[in-house]
C-alpha cells in the first residue's frame, strides 16, 4: 500500500511555499494495538516523531517528556488545580500541530493522518494579513510576529529596524543558529518538575518567539506576538524573552482564533529580566469558545528590575493562565494585574505566584473577574515571602462581579510569610451589581440595560486603567463594553 503524497508546506524561514513530494510511509502502528492509546501515549508518539534538534535540546525535551509522563495530568486533588478539572484536555488526544515532515516519514505514521495534520500546521488556516490586522489594535508599525498553530509565519510577520542590540526572531531559527542565550535560559526559568503542562510544552519545544535585548537596549515599538490557532490539534508555542541590564521592552502575546474549533494551546513564555531592566508584558487570551488553553508566563527578575504584567482572559471553553515571577534580587518590582470575563459554560482559571526571594521588593497585584451565564471563574494568587525577603511590600486583591445567579467563582488569595519585617495585605471580594448605584443611574434617565453595562464596565475599568499602552487599553475598553452591552440579563 504505497502511495505518493503531495503536500504544500510552508517552511519556517523560507517565506515561500515549497512543494514537497515524499514517499508515504508503509503500514501503521495503530494496527498493532487493540485499544485506543491514552492521550499521554499519543503525546509520547508525537514526541518521538519530532525532528531532532541540538543535543542540549534533545536532552531537555527527553527529560521533560519523562517528567510529564511521571506527573500525568493534574487532578483536582492537586492543590493548584483544586477548582479546575482538566479532564476535557486529558481525555482528548490532541495531535501535535507541528510535526516535522521528515520525522513523520522516518517514524512511519499513518500517512493520511499526518498529511492532514501537516496541512493544519501550515497556513491551511487561510490566515490573511487582514485577519491578523483585526487583532493588531489599529497599529501597523509595531513589530509583529505571527504564529499559525504555533509555527512562525514570516510572510505574515513584520519586524524591522533591528540593530545589534535587539534580536526578534522565531525560536526555531534561534535554536538553529545556536544562539547561546537560548541554551542558557530555555527551560531554566519555567520549572517543569511540578508543572505537567510546562513539562509537556518543554517536551515539544520547537518554535515560538525569541526576543533578546542587549544591555541598555530600549525598544520603543511594542512587540506583538499573535498566535492564531485552528483545527483540532495541539500547538505548544514556547517564547523566550531575555532582557539585558537596563534594557526596556513591551511584549504583547495575543492568542486568537478565526473560527470555532476545539483545539488546545499549551503555551509557555520565559522571561529573564536583567538588572534594572523593565519589561511590560501583556497576555490576551481571546481563543474561541470551544478551545482549550493553558498558558504559563514565568519570569525571573534580577535586582532593581521591573515587570508589569497584565493578563486578559475572555476566550476558551476551559482556560488556565499562570503568571509566575520570582523577585530574585534586591528591590525588584512587579505588578501583576488581570481581568477575566466569563460567560456561557466557560471555565477560566487564573493562577499567579510571586516569590519574594530578596529584600526591599514591592509586589502589587489586582485581578478582577466578571462572571455571567453558568460560567466558572477561578483565581488563585500566591505570594511567598522567603526569610531573606525583609522589607517586602506586598499588596494583592481579587474582586469578582457575578452577573448571573448561576455563575460561580472560587477565589483563593494565599500569603505565606517567612520574614518578620514585611508589609503585606491581601483580600478577595465576590459581589453583585450595587442596587443603589443602579437606581442612582436610573434616576438620571439612564435605562436599566445601559446602567448595567456602565456599572459592569466601571467595575472592570480601574484595572484596565493600569494598562500603559494606550491602543491596548482602548481595545480592552471596547471589548468590555461590547461584551456587556449585549448581555441579555
Amino acid at each position, binding site marked *: 500500500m504505497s502511495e505518493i503524497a503531495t503536500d504544500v508546506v510552508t517552511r519556517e524561514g523560507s517565506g515561500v511555499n515549497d512543494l514537497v513530494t515524499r514517499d508515504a510511509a508503509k503500514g501503521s502502528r495503530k494496527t498493532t494495538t487493540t485499544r485506543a492509546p491514552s492521550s499521554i501515549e499519543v503525546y509520547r508518539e508525537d514526541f518521538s516523531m519530532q525532528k531532532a534538534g541540538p543535543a542540549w535540546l534533545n536532552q531537555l525535551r527527553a527529560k521533560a517528556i519523562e517528567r510529564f509522563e511521571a506527573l500525568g495530568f493534574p487532578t483536582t486533588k492537586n492543590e493548584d488545580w483544586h477548582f479546575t478539572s482538566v479532564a476535557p484536555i486529558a481525555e482528548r488526544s490532541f495531535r501535535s500541530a507541528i510535526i516535522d515532515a521528515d520525522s513523520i516519514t522516518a517514524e512511519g505514521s499513518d500517512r493520511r493522518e499526518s498529511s492532514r495534520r501537516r496541512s493544519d500546521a501550515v497556513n491551511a488556516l487561510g490566515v490573511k494579513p487582514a485577519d491578523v490586522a483585526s487583532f493588531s489594535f489599529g497599529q501597523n508599525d509595531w513589530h509583529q510576529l505571527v504564529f499559525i498553530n504555533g509555527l512562525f509565519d514570516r510572510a505574515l510577520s513584520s519586524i524591522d529596524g533591528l540593530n545589534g542590540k535587539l534580536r526578534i526572531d522565531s525560536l526555531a531559527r534561534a535554536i538553529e543558529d545556536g544562539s547561546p542565550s537560548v541554551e542558557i535560559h530555555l527551560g531554566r526559568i519555567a520549572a517543569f518538575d511540578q508543572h505537567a503542562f510546562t513539562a509537556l510544552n518543554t517536551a515539544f519545544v520547537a518554535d515560538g518567539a525569541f526576543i533578546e535585548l542587549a544591555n541598555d537596549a530600549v525598544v520603543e515599538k511594542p512587540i506583538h506576538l499573535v498566535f492564531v490557532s485552528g483545527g483540532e490539534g495541539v500547538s505548544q508555542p514556547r517564547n523566550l524573552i531575555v532582557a539585558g541590564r537596563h534594557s526596556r521592552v513591551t511584549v504583547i502575546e495575543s492568542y486568537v482564533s478565526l473560527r470555532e474549533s476545539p483545539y488546545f494551546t499549551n503555551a509557555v513564555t520565559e522571561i529573564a529580566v536583567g538588572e534594572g531592566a523593565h519589561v511590560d508584558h501583556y497576555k490576551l487570551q481571546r481563543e474561541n469558545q470551544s478551545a482549550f488553553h493553558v498558558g504559563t508566563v514565568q519570569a525571573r527578575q534580577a535586582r532593581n528590575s521591573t515587570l508589569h504584567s497584565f493578563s486578559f482572559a475572555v476566550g476558551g471553553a476551559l482556560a488556565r493562565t499562570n503568571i509566575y515571577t520570582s523577585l530574585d534580587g534586591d528591590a525588584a518590582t512587579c505588578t501583576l494585574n488581570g481581568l477575566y470575563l466569563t460567560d456561557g459554560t466557560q471555565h477560566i482559571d487564573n493562577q499567579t505566584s510571586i516569590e519574594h526571594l530578596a529584600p526591599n521588593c514591592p509586589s502589587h497585584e489586582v485581578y478582577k473577574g466578571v462572571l455571567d451565564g453558568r460560567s466558572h471563574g477561578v483565581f488563585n494568587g500566591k505570594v511567598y515571602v522567603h526569610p531573606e525577603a525583609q522589607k517586602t511590600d506586598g499588596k494583592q486583591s481579587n474582586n469578582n462581579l457575578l452577573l448571573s445567579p448561576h455563575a460561580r467563582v472560587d477565589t483563593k488569595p494565599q500569603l505565606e510569610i517567612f520574614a518578620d519585617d514585611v508589609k503585606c495585605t491581601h483580600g478577595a471580594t465576590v459581589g453583585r451589581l*450595587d*442596587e*443603589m*448605584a443602579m*437606581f*442612582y*443611574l*436610573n*434616576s*438620571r*434617565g*439612564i*435605562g*436599566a440595560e*445601559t*446602567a448595567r453595562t*456602565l*456599572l459592569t*464596565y*466601571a*467595575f*472592570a*475599568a*480601574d484595572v484596565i486603567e493600569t494598562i500603559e499602552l494606550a491602543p491596548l487599553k482602548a481595545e480592552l475598553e471596547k471589548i468590555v463594553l461590547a461584551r456587556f452591552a449585549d448581555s441579555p440579563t
Partner: protein
Amino acid sequence: MLEINDLHAGIGDREILRGITLNVNAGEVHAVMGPNGSGKSTLAQVLAGNPSYEVTSGTVRYNGQDLLELDPEVRAQNGIFLAFQYPVEIPGVSNAYFLRSAYNEIRKANGQEELDPLEFLDLVEEKLKLVDMDQAMLSRSVNQGFSGGEKKRNEIFQMAVLAPRLAILDETDSGLDIDALRIVAEGVNKLRSPENATIVVTHYQRLLNYIVPDFVHVLANGRIVKSGGKELALELEARGYDWIPSLTEAGTSVGSTA
C-alpha cells in the same frame, strides 16, 4: 403638575407613608418638613421610583400620567429629578461620562439630538459656575472621594445640566456649612421658573431662608399633619415639632389647590 392622592408605601411589611395627599403646580416651591422617621425621604424615593419601596395604595399623577407605572429612568426622561440625600459613589465612571449619558438618554427619549462630548463640555462649563465647582471634577469618578459638600453640589450641578421640570431635593442641606448651603441654594434659585416646580425635603428651616417656599407641609408618621405658607417653617423653627397637635392623628392635607 403633580397630584399625590392617599399614597401608602413602605419597605417589606413596614408601612412608612400612610396616606399622603399633595398637589404641586408649576412655578411652586413646596417644603416638606418633619421629624426624623416621619417619611420625608421615603416620599422623595417613591416619587423617583426607587424599586426598594413598595406602593401599596393611592395614586400619583404627573402631568396627567400615572407616575407609579413608570420606570425610574422614564420618570427622569419626563422631567423628574431627585437630588439624593446620600449621593451614590460610582467608581470607574467619570462624572462627565455619567452626566453626558444621562443628558443624552433624556434628549433621545424626548426626540432631541444627542450632544457630542465637545458640545456637552460647553454646556456643562456654564453650569459648573452655578455651583462654584471646578472643571477638574468632571474627570473624577462619580462622587468617589467627594466631601459631603462636594456631593451635594454635584447633585445640584446635575440638576442644572438635566434641567428637570420637577426637582425633589432630599435633605440637600444636611452636612453643609453655611457657605456651601448658600451656593447650593443660589443654584436652586437660579433654576426656578414658572414652568418648573420644586419639592424641598428638609428637617431644618435654615435652607428655607435661602430657598423661600410657597407652601410648607409638616409630615409626621407618614401623613401630612399640617400645611401652610412659608411662615409655618419659621414657627417650626421657633417652637420645634412638638406643638403640632396629635402627630399620630390622621392629618388632612391642604396642599395647594389647582
